[in-house]
């Protein structure tokens, strides 16, 4: 029961319990499609802070709705994508960015594809060289008596 209460407490801590990933207020959509597309692109790169793993655009939480509205106001006011993103980071930190910026802290993260590929290539190269070297010198292991018997049985049948 304690576990339940804890979960309930966590839930109510959130500004607004978002039961389903539903729909937002249409009145906040911009009538200019190019601007709306820009606003959506910005919003889909920002994290909804209340619901943990969704973008601002996908979430129906109250805070996400407010931030969506702010993005649209700023798009209309002619601010650049960078300025709008910086505005959000200033308030909520880089935690709000679903795509972490490339900085010393994230070198390993952004470098992970290259590191993995290099590591894979290195392992393959080493294995190829070893295979060359050893395959020539090593004879196959002798069969155990039991295996010999099985082999003979197989050959006979």
């Amino acid at each position, binding site marked *: 029961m304690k*576990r339940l209460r804890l979960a309930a407490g966590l839930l109510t801590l959130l500004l607004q319990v978002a039961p*389903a990933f539903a729909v937002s*207020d249409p009145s906040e959509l911009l009538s200019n499609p190019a601007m709306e597309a820009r606003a959506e692109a910005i919003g889909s790169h920002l994290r909804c802070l209340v619901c943990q793993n*969704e973008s601002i655009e996908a979430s129906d939480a109250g805070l996400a709705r407010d931030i969506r509205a702010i993005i649209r106001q700023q798009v209309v006011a002619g601010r650049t994508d960078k300025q709008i993103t910086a505005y959000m980071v200033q308030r909520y930190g880089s935690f709000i960015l679903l795509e972490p910026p490339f900085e010393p*802290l994230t070198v390993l993260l952004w470098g992970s594809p290259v590191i993995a590929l290099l590591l894979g290539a290195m392992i393959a190269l080493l294995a190829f060289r*070893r295979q060359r070297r050893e395959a020539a010198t090593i004879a196959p292991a002798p069969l155990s008596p039991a295996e010999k018997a099985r082999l003979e049985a197989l050959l006979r049948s």
Partner: protein
Amino acid sequence: MIPELGHFAIALAVVIALSQAIISIWGAHRGDARFIAAAPALALSQAMAVGFAFLALVWSGIVSDFSVINVAEYSSARTPLLYKITGAWGNHEGSILLWCLILSFCGAAVAVFGRNLPSALRARVIGVLGLVSCGFLLFTLTVSDPLGRIWPPPSEGQGVNPLLQDPGLAFHPPILYSGYVGFAVAFAFAVASLLEGRVDAAWGRWVRPWTLGAWCLLTSGIALGSWWSYYELGWGGYWFWDPVENASLLPWLTGTALLHSAIVVEKREALKIWSVLLAITTFSLSLAGTFMVRSGLLNSVHAFANDPTRGVFILALLGLVIGGSLLLFAWRAPVLQPAGLFAPLSREGALVLNNILLCSIMAVVLAGTMYPPFVQLIFDQQISVGPPFFISTVVPLAAPLMAAMGLGPVLSWKRAAVAPALLRLWWAALASLIVVLVGFYGRLGWAAVGFGAALWMVLSALAEIVERSQLFRQPIGTAWARLRGLPRASYGAAVAHAGLGVAVAGMVGMTLASHSIVLLHPGDTTKVGNYDWRLVSLTSGAGSDFTARIATLAVTDARTGQAIATMYPARRTFPLQQQTTTDVAIRTNGFRDLYAALGDERDGGIVLRIHVNPLAPWIWFGALIMAFGGALSLSDRRLRIGAPVRLARRRAADMKVAAE
């Protein structure tokens, strides 16, 4: 009484699992035939004990015994029967018991279907499975009791989470877990072979069907989960790149790699050490996924209620199982015999490339999933890693994989030349190129490349079959005979590759989706995609434990005015759970989905989220084709392994008849 019996059965299972581990492994080590022979019986009895405990939990749910905490918390008298049953695994404790059940069934399956294995190897495999089982059963018994009681029992349960009241999700966990846990068999084979100190072609042949079976189930499980997310959550997408989803993707990636490297072991006795490591890694990732989901270390949309005590227990279990196997690996793998020389440019080489790329994707997904908690631990900073990161890192790695996928199967073993292989695929390459150019002309941008890649995968898979049957080159009769003579494994591989192509086409199609969020009053019309959507009416309804608001939407073709569909998206309110869910309406014609989800009601109108998703159903259809391809390949193996046995038995029976 029944829950207590179930509880007792778990305790019994712990003892059986422990003896299964000790007797089998020690017996195999000493070569004691009696102990070795005891292994299958122990595995079967463990499965029966766990099966009884699981039935006890399901039974408590069916009869709504609210004195069982789990039933009281996750079920209610008004819950439909189906969800009373599936509620058994809709919570942490029950799902761990399901996990144990599947693990014990894996052991039983090896006992039953592994008759053709050398008995010592089979005993070792069963022993290793018993050891893992024992750990998880102990976890169930000590800190995660699914059959605990409360007193006094509440008169009514709290009900199933409405989001989980869905046939798709009800059967998602059993299938997904079967995939996850199924890799335990490949793991057990790896550890057994390390204990034995030998890995050979036969090992590759034995481990492959088990891996393939688990892979098919995991593929279906992931597809089912993503489909559920698409039609139940009402957000219009199908994959969050959420830690919980990534946790299932990680073993899938290495499992797919293992599937391919095991072919090389079987056919060429190469990549042995690597395959053993992959088998260990795949199951380790399954275990790590369980840990990540249940420890509360990750931010996720669908996490279980978490508890640090449990986290510590699972982590310790993880350390023992994975650490033990990796220690054994470091100790024993260096003395495994290398064999099977091949040139970098060959079928084996292509499979090595497949493995490098798949493992790189795995590394990236793992890095993206684990980076935030580790950054917080070490630097005390909060960062997020979300879909934009995964898309921009995984796609560049997946692209060469798709390109090589078509080429690999037509390369010859040992040493190959690219030019003749390409020559055989020229028509597939040309067709794909045309699609890309047409796509660019139609201003599809990158999606054009995606469609080209998808077509390339499908056509090159087809080309391989054509090539091997020498269709169009030999007289039709000969070609037909060759087609029939091709092993099912070849068809399976081609079907699975083509299935991935279909799924990729669906994913690319989804990037071209058009959507809109509008406030409509009854009678209003809006245009999304090439369709007019008219809200006809807004009505109320009720189900067994919910009330609903239902919209009636008439969809017509915007140009011709022809009626396309009538759709009924709804919004359900569950008073008991105080929760609201959207009931998405989807109408598909196989090439595009019309998708409508209901939002809040506002001054007489209602907010609607409307999507037109081109090719969306292909994503799941493609995944199903992949799983079917795997199953096709599996049926081939079973025949090949089973045939001599059955033949011998029939011959013996014939002789018996003759003797009489």
